[in-house]
């Protein structure tokens, strides 16, 4: 473990470098990528808290057979808006927010390629979110069609009312926002790297944002087209998905999942990148197999475009062996990443501070989600557990155990850079342990419930089914999850007021964001070290003979 050097710590000063203006008008009109990144992150956490509250109501309802808190219609609205909020308005925007803040810093750029477009992208996302969730204010309630919006359930016949229309239009706007953001990221990464920062010296996080942007460009237009077709069906008398008039509801599933499965990788690849940034720094080693990481990311991105119909095995309308094979093969590049992460830690000088703790938690939790994914890619198993809680358990291990754990790792790792103050280590570790206990209590029992035949998306179950004990366990776990998130919020607000000054480089980082002040000045850098490798800040420290070249993270709790 690294030790705390009091003299080094003494060099850390309170965050006061070029502190930007902070008035309301300034935030409303900003085109600074860092402020837009902060806006994204704060808004995404807001949607996370709201969507999380919806899930707490769901868990409370499922704690006992019968209907105690909400009716069937309200329950349908709750799980629809929970899924929609988490997928479209929390996880993806968090990735975009982190990318906004850190991609220009990591490649040595003063801003993104199109700053105004970047601001528009953010406000369009907010507009989409407001429209989508405003369904709760309408007479018929919010959309109640599941986040997948399957036809013909989403047709006017079965889902009249403005809720579904607001859901369609809101997601259409947020989809356009995603497309514009992806273009901005690509232009920034391709066109604004500092001299010396070749493609194969870029931090892995930037590579992952690049591949994610590519996936967004391939898939979001397809989703937008599908939503436009659904809107035409509902409002203008179209019949794209109406079989009684020659339409095809299976077409909706093809279009939705051609977007929907790459979307899973859009939600996880940026956080693979986050973890790949954190593990080498806290192991005091260069990342093992840089090219392998990049290659695996490209392969995952490519493969993800050809697996969509594994969500449609039970329709009987797709070629199951093709999609089983393409789905299972994704485990290979993902396995490459896992081996590389482990090899990076192997015989490293590991410092188990909060960002690293969350990263290691991510490895274990995501691995479970990934392995159950391989099971589900097998049609005979999928036929057995399709639309059961086994699938709910699987994707929560991927998206909560994977994305959310990595999001918290990113917060603990990068908030000191954003704010200039370190988060509290003790509260951070309490947050981690509460989260991992609550998470496993909530979602592990769902595997068993699913295998025993408990259907997803149904508000009630029979008291004779034997499902209640595991449901009570899951509901108690959800309460612990809520407590864990509360600890995080307390930690955040306390640390922002009273946290220790972080200094420019509290962790002994490798990439260029650690070469500037915390928070960075407008246009990011006073000095950029020469880039000769994928670890320019490490090289610079070594060349200058400064402290930390061979040292480690020196935040609190590192001793």
């Amino acid at each position, binding site marked *: 473990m690294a030790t705390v050097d009091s003299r080094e710590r003494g060099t850390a000063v309170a965050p006061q470098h070029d502190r930007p203006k902070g008035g309301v008008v300034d935030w409303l009109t900003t085109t600074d990528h860092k402020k837009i990144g902060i806006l994204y992150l704060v808004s995404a956490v807001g949607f996370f808290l709201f969507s999380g509250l919806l899930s707490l109501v769901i868990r409370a309802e499922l704690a006992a057979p019968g209907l105690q808190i909400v009716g069937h219609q309200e329950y349908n609205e709750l799980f629809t808006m929970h899924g929609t909020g988490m997928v479209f308005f929390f996880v993806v925007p968090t990735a975009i927010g982190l990318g906004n803040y850190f991609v220009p810093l990591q490649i040595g750029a*003063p801003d993104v390629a199109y700053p105004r477009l970047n601001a528009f992208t953010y406000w369009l996302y907010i507009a989409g979110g407001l429209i989508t969730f405003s369904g709760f204010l309408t007479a018929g309630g919010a959309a109640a069609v599941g986040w997948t919006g399957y036809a013909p359930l989403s047709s006017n016949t079965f889902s009249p009312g403005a809720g579904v229309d607001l859901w369609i239009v809101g997601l259409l*706007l947020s989809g356009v926002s995603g497309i514009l953001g992806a273009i901005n990221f690509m232009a920034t990464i391709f066109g604004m*790297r500092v001299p010396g*920062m*070749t*493609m194969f*010296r870029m931090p892995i996080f930037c590579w992952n944002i690049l591949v994610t942007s590519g996936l967004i460009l391939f898939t979001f237009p397809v989703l937008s087209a599908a939503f436009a077709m659904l809107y035409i069906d509902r409002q203008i008398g179209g019949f794209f998905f109406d079989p009684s008039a020659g339409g095809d509801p299976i077409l909706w599933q*093809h279009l939705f999942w051609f977007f929907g499965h790459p979307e899973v990788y859009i939600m996880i690849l940026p956080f693979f990148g986050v973890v790949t940034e954190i593990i080498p720094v806290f192991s005091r080693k260069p990342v093992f197999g840089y090219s392998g990481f990049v290659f695996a990311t490209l392969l995952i991105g490519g493969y993800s475009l050809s697996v969509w119909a594994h969500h449609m095995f039970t329709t009987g309308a797709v070629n199951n062996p093709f999609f089983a094979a393409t789905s299972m093969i994704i485990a290979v590049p993902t396995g490459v990443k896992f081996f590389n992460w482990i090899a990076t830690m192997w015989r490293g000088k590991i410092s188990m501070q909060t960002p690293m703790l969350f990263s290691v938690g991510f490895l274990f939790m995501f691995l479970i989600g990934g392995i159950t994914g391989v099971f589900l890619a097998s049609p005979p198993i999928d036929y057995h557990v399709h639309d059961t809680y086994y699938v709910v358990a699987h994707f929560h291990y991927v998206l909560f155990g994977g994305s959310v754990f990595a999001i918290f790792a990113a917060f603990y790792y990068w908030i000191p850079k954003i704010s200039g103050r370190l988060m509290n280590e003790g509260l951070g570790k309490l947050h981690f342990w509460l989260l991992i206990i609550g998470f496993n209590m909530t979602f592990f029992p769902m595997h068993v419930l699913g295998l025993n035949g408990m259907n997803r998306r149904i508000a009630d179950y029979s008291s004779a089914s034997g499902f209640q004990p595991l449901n009570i366990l899951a509901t108690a776990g959800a309460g612990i999850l809520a407590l864990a998130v509360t600890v995080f919020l307390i930690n955040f607000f306390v640390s922002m007021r009273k946290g220790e000054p972080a200094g420019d480089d509290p962790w002994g980082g490798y990439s260029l964001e650690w070469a500037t002040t915390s928070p960075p000045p407008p246009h990011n850098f006073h000095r950029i070290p*020469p*880039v000769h490798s994928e670890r320019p800040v490490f090289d610079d420290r070594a060349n200058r003979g400064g402290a930390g070249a061979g040292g480690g993270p020196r935040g609190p709790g590192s001793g």
Partner: protein
Amino acid sequence: MVEELRFFLRIAVYLVVIGTIYWFVSYEVAGTLLLLFGAVATGFFVVAARISFQPKTPEDLAPRPPSSGLHRMTGVFGRYFAFDDENAAGGEPTEAPLALEEEGFPESSIWPLAAALAALLLGLGLVFGPWLWIPGLALGASSMWGWLTQLTA
């Protein structure tokens, strides 16, 4: 070929291959078209960008190393698909200059927010009635005007 183009070329080739296989195992139209349209769009971008390409990235400015062993072994495939950073090794940078083109970056602008508000009104108009398009279009047009004139100011 620079890595930026190879990035897209690999995707285009993959989509052609997988799209062709998919057609012959499924004869399913929607998925095949999605895959092949993706390939066409990406391929078009690669060709257009290759034609109009002006070297300015670090890899392009670097002196090219002599034909490497990898490229000799893999021939055309290596040239277009190789996964190596030999170009980077050929051109070590000197001290990286600060590229702060501050005048090129707008400090603030109200027009992105105004344009998003216009999109909000247009979107709500799709649900609650076209009357909302009147303020939406007006705000959208003025946002576009403000944005463009600010760009050229």
